[in-house]
């Protein structure tokens, strides 16, 4: 019964592969009972609470091939187990993709960024407190949602794409990568595939148990950021209750190419408003080619929240999202 507050890591095996092949083989053979371990900042709570009980952890941070930031033909590639601190402080990222550097620097707290990885921040599980408490809700494989009800505590929950589950994407770096048109590199023992950042995440309508397209045996090994939006004008803002150790109530990431006051191209994404980072294509379409102005910014804001369906306690997210998008376009 859930009558105990757990605090100690239960028995779990640990594998520390040092080369890719070995890690992929382990992921493949262990399948569902192998837990992919990055920095572990999202992992250990689950395991200590005994709300997730894998038989083994496969530590990915010993694999050098999946670490670091390097230039590629078109842009840069960031290893999935590169720490958020390294990304935030990396000159290359700072100079060309400041959006990601800023987003990474807003995550949790310095110590968490020191060990927390990009892959971990992207793949972290939903933060809905009912789910985290270990209740058997839809996302946990049950048949009920405790948050989406007249009395449910859903202040932090979704405005869009609710489908039985109303949890939101908790990541700060995800919207930044969507805005930068990044590509996820996913490897498995049977090969490698690449997925556009915005297609990498899954809403509850398509898979209520998993937040990404990763299948058993697959590992996110790298993220590629094309040069298309390098050195563009960037805007990232995260609004949370606390300025440290908090998840966004809403965050916004924008990459804008402006010349002569005209928005030539733009990519926009918001986090914490849907189960996936929400790309605002309608807004992008409406402002592309337009003269940048206060009015345009306001219109963008209004367009951004079009179709929002607030729950009982998260109505405030509508004006908040609207304002953040407005600020992003206003610059």
């Amino acid at each position, binding site marked *: 019964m859930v009558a105990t507050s757990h605090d100690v890591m239960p028995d779990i*095996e640990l594998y520390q592969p040092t080369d890719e092949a070995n890690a992929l083989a382990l992921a493949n053979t262990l399948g569902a009972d192998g837990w992919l371990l990055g920095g572990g900042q999202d992992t250990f709570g689950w395991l200590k609470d005994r709300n997730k009980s894998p038989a083994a952890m496969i*530590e990915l941070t010993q694999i050098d091939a999946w670490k670091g930031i390097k230039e590629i033909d078109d842009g840069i590639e960031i290893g999935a187990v590169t720490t958020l601190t390294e990304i935030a402080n990396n000159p290359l990222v700072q100079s060309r993709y400041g959006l990601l550097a800023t987003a990474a620097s807003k995550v949790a707290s310095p110590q968490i960024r020191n*060990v927390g990885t990009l892959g971990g921040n992207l793949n972290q599980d939903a933060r809905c407190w009912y789910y985290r408490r270990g209740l058997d809700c839809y996302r946990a494989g049950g048949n009920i949602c405790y948050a989406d009800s007249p009395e449910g505590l859903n202040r932090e929950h979704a405005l869009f794409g609710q489908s039985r589950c109303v949890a939101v994407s908790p990541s700060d770096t995800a919207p930044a990568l969507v805005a930068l048109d990044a590509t996820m590199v996913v490897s498995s023992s049977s090969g490698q595939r690449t997925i556009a950042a915005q297609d990498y995440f899954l809403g509850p309508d398509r898979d209520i148990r998993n937040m990404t397209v990763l299948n058993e045996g697959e590992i996110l090994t790298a993220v590629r950021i094309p040069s298309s939006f390098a050195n563009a004008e960037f805007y990232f803002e995260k609004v949370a209750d606390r300025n440290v150790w908090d998840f966004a109530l809403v965050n916004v990431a924008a990459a804008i190419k402006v010349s002569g006051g005209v928005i030539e191209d733009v990519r926009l994404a918001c986090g914490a408003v849907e189960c996936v980072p929400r790309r605002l294509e309608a807004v992008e379409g409406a402002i592309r080619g337009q003269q940048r102005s206060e009015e345009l910014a306001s219109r963008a804001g209004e367009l951004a929240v079009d179709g929002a369906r607030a729950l009982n306690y998260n109505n405030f997210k509508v004006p908040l999202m609207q304002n953040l998008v407005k600020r992003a376009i206003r610059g």
Partner: protein
Amino acid sequence: MNPKLTRRRFIKGVIASGAAVTTTTMWYVANGQDRPAGYVERLIRINVNGQVRNVDVAPQETLASTLRYKLGLTGTKLGCNRGECGACTVLVDGTATYACSVLTHSVKTGMIETVEGLESANGDLHPVQQAFVESLSPQCGYCTPGQVMAAVALLRTNPNPTREEARQGMSGNLCRCGSYDSYLDGVMRAAEIG
């Protein structure tokens, strides 16, 4: 039959019976294979405060557990055991890290520094400790070891921080007494006397 379903159910059964450890072992035995490379051995040597210690560490053991309960280094405090307070902050290769949220096996090759390792051989306090005493930075003191270690890490990378830089650098440490102002006084003083 759908392999996903059957495997999950098999695993559930095993875990429910509280024998998670044997699960993967069983899997490999059942498949007539040896454990794959990368499986950790429990007996390890770790370098804590410059001393190499032999210690028997369970695969899932956190560094905080090893330090407190295996090595008796109780200066490292557990305020939440969830990476939400920073009282357990230690240095791994100079990097401030929550000992409650990192596996000992993950850092076994690193140089681990705890609050017990800061004093010089002749017993003099580390400049940060000295400054914290002079500024009366601690109140209840429970978060202090973590604050000390965070400050040490900060000043190594940035020996002369502005108060704002110090504030940012220390921000991964919670103090319920609200002594932040006094800790920042301490960090600034440490930068002077350091």
